[in-house]
């Protein structure tokens, strides 16, 4: 049982340890896991059907409907959303979620609803994601919510059922890793470039078993959107979760959102949130340092998010890697990506540009993209898709006239969803097509069978859409629009 002593420990603690300690329902003894309370459970159509089925089989209710929220995102089309979904499997998953939500009483935002969208965009925008809480979802990119100083991680279907039934999870504590990014970013370098560089540095397994805490002046200077981009991709370094300590930026983002605390609750919450940052003298299990001013716009050349380099570099050769496993991986990746070592990345032409996904589809991301494409025309033959992360982001963008900027540029302006982040809905690459994508995974076939993905920031995606080859905004001829 969590005792007062456990809540007022005498040693300096990290942010992650504080959030953990405050959620221990039963302390695990003799190597048993701790029982951890879950403050917020996000649900979507892909990983929930069997969990609801399990509840039904045992005659169990959802314990806390008021801590549970569902949305449709992975399977949803982003055009003609008022039509029945053509793909049968997709339609069944969506209809199953609707039935389950109705039967159990779970709040659901369906396609067409103004709060519908990618689960990791919806939580923060409603003000449900906040500092010092635990958030889970049957989706690995739940790490996104750590940007608020929440402990947020993806879970499997059995665990989804466990949380629905008990609002808790038996868990063993994670290790902690500090990733300190100090200094100022150069113009045109963004949060996406920071995280791609970090993953390239520590590898796709470097974070295994850890909660990463992103710290340092460059992180403090980021907006909430930028912090979410970074935490979103922590999972791509193999980490269980990513976190950023809450500060004035966090509080300002939250204040006034539909489900943010109000009145005395707000005062109490902020007072508590201010106690969360890692104590002076707290010890991390591992530490990594990155100098922000050395970073450049980043791009992946391979088929995992760790295979990335600066955009001004060339495609590496397998022999450039010391580790024989990495050499093999590089050889396979180059073949799949159809790239020749030594080719400047800026010479690589693309067929498509995808601006979207839970990594980069918030209003700020769309503004950044718009700031580059405004007043320009997309390159001939390049297909450009702009997909807002949520219906609300779509409305916000339209209110600002961004939709017009995109359409004038020659891009397709879509409805909200995961879209071309993964080949589960109609938005897919054709075999052999090459795409500059603001999403988070460049695995073989991720954006469609045989499709080739280069992960980039919204600014690089925009410049690439203008020139038809991988490019950064500084490669564009002078332009009169105001930069964001």
């Amino acid at each position, binding site marked *: 049982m969590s005792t007062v002593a456990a809540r007022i420990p005498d040693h300096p603690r990290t942010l992650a340890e504080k959030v953990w300690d405050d959620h221990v329902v039963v302390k695990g003894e003799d190597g048993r896991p701790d029982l951890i*309370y879950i403050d917020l459970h996000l649900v979507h159509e892909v990983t929930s059907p069997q969990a609801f089925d399990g509840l039904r089989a045992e005659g169990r209710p959802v314990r806390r409907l*008021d801590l549970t929220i569902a949305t449709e995102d992975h399977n949803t089309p982003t055009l003609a959303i008022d039509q029945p979904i053509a793909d049968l*499997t997709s339609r069944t998953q969506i209809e199953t979620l609707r039935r389950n939500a109705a039967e159990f009483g779970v709040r659901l935002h369906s396609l067409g609803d103004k709060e519908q969208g990618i689960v990791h965009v919806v939580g923060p925008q409603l003000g449900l994601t906040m500092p010092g809480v635990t958030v889970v979802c049957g989706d690995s990119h739940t790490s996104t919510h750590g940007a608020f100083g929440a402990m947020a991680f993806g879970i499997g279907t059995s665990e989804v059922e466990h949380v629905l*039934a*008990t609002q808790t999870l038996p868990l063993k504590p994670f290790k902690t890793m500090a990733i300190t990014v100090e200094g100022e970013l150069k113009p045109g370098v963004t949060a996406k470039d920071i995280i791609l560089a970090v993953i390239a540095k520590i590898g796709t397994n470097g974070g295994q078993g850890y909660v990463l805490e992103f710290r340092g002046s460059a992180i403090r200077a980021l907006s909430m959107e930028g912090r979410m981009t970074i935490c979103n991709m922590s999972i791509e370094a193999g980490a269980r979760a990513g976190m950023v300590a809450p500060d004035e930026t966090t509080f300002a983002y939250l204040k006034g959102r539909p489900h943010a605390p109000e009145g005395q609750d707000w005062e109490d*919450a902020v007072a508590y949130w201010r106690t969360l940052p890692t104590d002076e003298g707290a010890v991390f299990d591992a530490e990594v340092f990155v100098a922000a001013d050395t970073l450049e716009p980043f791009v992946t050349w391979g088929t995992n998010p760790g295979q990335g380099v600066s955009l001004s570099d060339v495609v590496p050769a397998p022999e450039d890697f010391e580790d024989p496993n990495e050499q093999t991986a590089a050889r396979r990746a180059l073949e799949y990506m159809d790239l020749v070592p030594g080719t400047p990345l800026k010479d690589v032409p693309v067929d498509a540009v995808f601006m979207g996904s839970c990594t980069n589809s918030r209003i700020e991301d769309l503004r950044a993209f718009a700031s580059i494409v405004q007043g320009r025309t997309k390159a001939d033959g390049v297909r450009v898709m702009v997909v807002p992360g949520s219906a609300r982001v779509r409305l916000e963008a339209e209110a600002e006239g961004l939709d017009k900027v995109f359409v004038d540029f020659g891009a397709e302006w879509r409805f909200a969803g995961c879209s071309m982040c993964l080949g589960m809905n109609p938005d897919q690459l054709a075999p052999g097509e090459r795409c500059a994508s603001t999403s988070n995974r460049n695995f073989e076939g991720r954006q469609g069978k045989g499709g080739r993905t280069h992960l980039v920031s919204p600014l690089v995606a925009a410049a690439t859409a203008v020139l038809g080859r991988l490019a950064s905004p500084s490669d564009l001829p002078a332009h009169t629009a105001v930069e964001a």
Partner: protein
Amino acid sequence: MEKFTTHTGVVAPLTRSAVDTDQIIPAVYLKRVTKTGFEDALFASWRQDPEFVLNQPAYRDASILVAGPDFGTGSSREHAVWALRDYGFRVVLSPRFADIFRGNAGKQGLVTGVISESDTEKVWAIIAAQPGIEMTVDLEARTAQIGDLRLTFEIDDYTGWRLLEGLDDIGLTLRDEAAIAQFEARRETWRPRTLPVR
């Protein structure tokens, strides 16, 4: 989860080793949205062969499976256990199980008992002489009786206890219901609530 004490049922021989989860349930069945109703998917490709053991009338109602070593290797799909359970299996005995499969089985009330290779051969021989013979499995005593043969099996104490008590992970956690309720009673009011809709 139902408590498991003893179980008597027809025992089927699966005289193969390294039966991986792709054989237990092929990937095409993973697109389903239910956690039950996988009985038709069990050993789906093998069952196309009329000679396959489960297609023989003597074993159609089998609830105990005795398989060769390394049962349940490969993909971690929980569906493999669901398929065995839905078909009606309560017990699988084998000289060796893949770890993840055993873990998944324990969560779903399927007993996985480890027996010696020589006992496996003996059981197969008894079944061959008397197709459709029943076996009685006693979880508390960790024994199985078939004809005159009494054999012992192993299962780890924690899993054995959970199965005897009929506790799945959720059932176990619900034993701490009082602690959960107490925790909830002192949760701060500023913490997120999805309802009422705002």
